[in-house]
């Protein structure tokens, strides 16, 4: 590399930038309360998922057609109420994941060690996410929260109930189909939409977001979740 270009890169490395501000709370606050503008450094620090998760919504939910009503954030998962659900096919929760594979292969592929119940089926995995059947038509999915890979879009008919799972915040989603959108971890807009007819329990456990999807009651889902620790 010519000397000048090498010097420029070196200068870039040594440039002093002001301290990086925390933009996420301000942006989240403004998105959740669009008419108001929040002044710098006046916003509350909120726990939230990565914006890429929230960003995925607009692919399927054009703002002119549907109004975003409310966000819920659990670990790396966002749940958002909308007026109209986007079109999406019914697919298996493990669709798009490789497998089944062994636990060690899944760890290697997903990049983290999952927390599993005593009894489970083969494991399906991809970068930052893995899933396994833990009962009839019941799937446990785990995703790294920092990647913010998925989003659920729920209609008004869907019941959203905050719950506690093993002392961790969670959300019970019941009553109507909702749509899950995955956004890949490499920042490319490869979203996949899946329509979920079953009920879902989502909770955060450290840096991992877990969800159980299936034809379960809230008590059954919580019972299963309590065995995963």
């Amino acid at each position, binding site marked *: 590399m010519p000397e*000048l270009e090498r010097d420029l890169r070196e200068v870039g490395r*040594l*440039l002093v930038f002001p301290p990086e501000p925390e*933009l996420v709370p301000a942006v989240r606050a403004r998105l959740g309360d669009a008419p108001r503008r929040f002044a710098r450094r006046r916003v509350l620090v909120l726990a939230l998922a990565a914006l890429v998760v929230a960003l995925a919504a607009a692919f399927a939910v*054009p703002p002119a057609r549907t109004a975003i009503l409310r966000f819920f954030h659990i670990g790396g998962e966002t749940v958002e109420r909308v007026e109209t659900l986007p079109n999406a096919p019914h697919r298996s929760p493990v669709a798009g994941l490789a497998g089944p594979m062994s636990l060690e292969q899944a760890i290697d592929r997903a990049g983290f060690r999952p927390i599993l119940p005593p009894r489970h089926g083969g494991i399906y995995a991809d970068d930052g996410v893995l899933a396994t059947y833990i009962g009839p038509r019941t799937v446990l999915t785990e995703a790294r929260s920092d990647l913010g890979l998925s989003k659920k879009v729920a209609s008004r008919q869907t019941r959203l109930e905050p719950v506690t799972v093993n002392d961790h915040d969670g959300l019970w989603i019941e009553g109507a189909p909702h749509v899950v959108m995955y956004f890949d971890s490499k*920042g*490319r807009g490869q979203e996949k939409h899946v329509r979920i007819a079953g009920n879902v329990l989502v909770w955060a456990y450290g840096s991992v977001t877990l969800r159980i999807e299936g034809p379960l009651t809230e008590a059954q889902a919580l019972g299963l979740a309590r065995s995963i620790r």
Partner: protein
Amino acid sequence: MHAYQGIAFRIAYLVVGNAAEAEDAAQDGFVKAYRALHRFRSGEPLRPWLLKIVANEARNRRRASTRRDALTLRATAESSSGEAAPSPEAALLESERRRALVTAVDSLPEPQRLVIACRYFLDLSEDETAEVLGIRRGTVKSRTARALDRLRETYA
């Protein structure tokens, strides 16, 4: 968003040269990106698209503001790996050369300054730089070449 807020803030800062304006520009850029997502083409890389919106916001603010802080360098440069530590005199000379280079970059016309900042200070690829600055890849190449020529004249 966490993944991109650092580089978004830095690119905004390099455009407006002011921390408060850069923070506002980055924040506005993220909000606009969210609202413009229906225009994002699936399969395209997210980062340059997002940074382009932030850079546009910063440029709009730059037009409204004349004050731009000069770029500064860390006082002590770490020695490059594998090289013997330079003598104090050599280190001082090197430090002055770098300062002169920063001043020279700061004095470039804005289009050239931004292309140098994207390519060398933020380490963006030519494609990313083109997307972020809203110009063609060929323009990135020619503008970079002109900027480097100009820097060689003033910095050499």
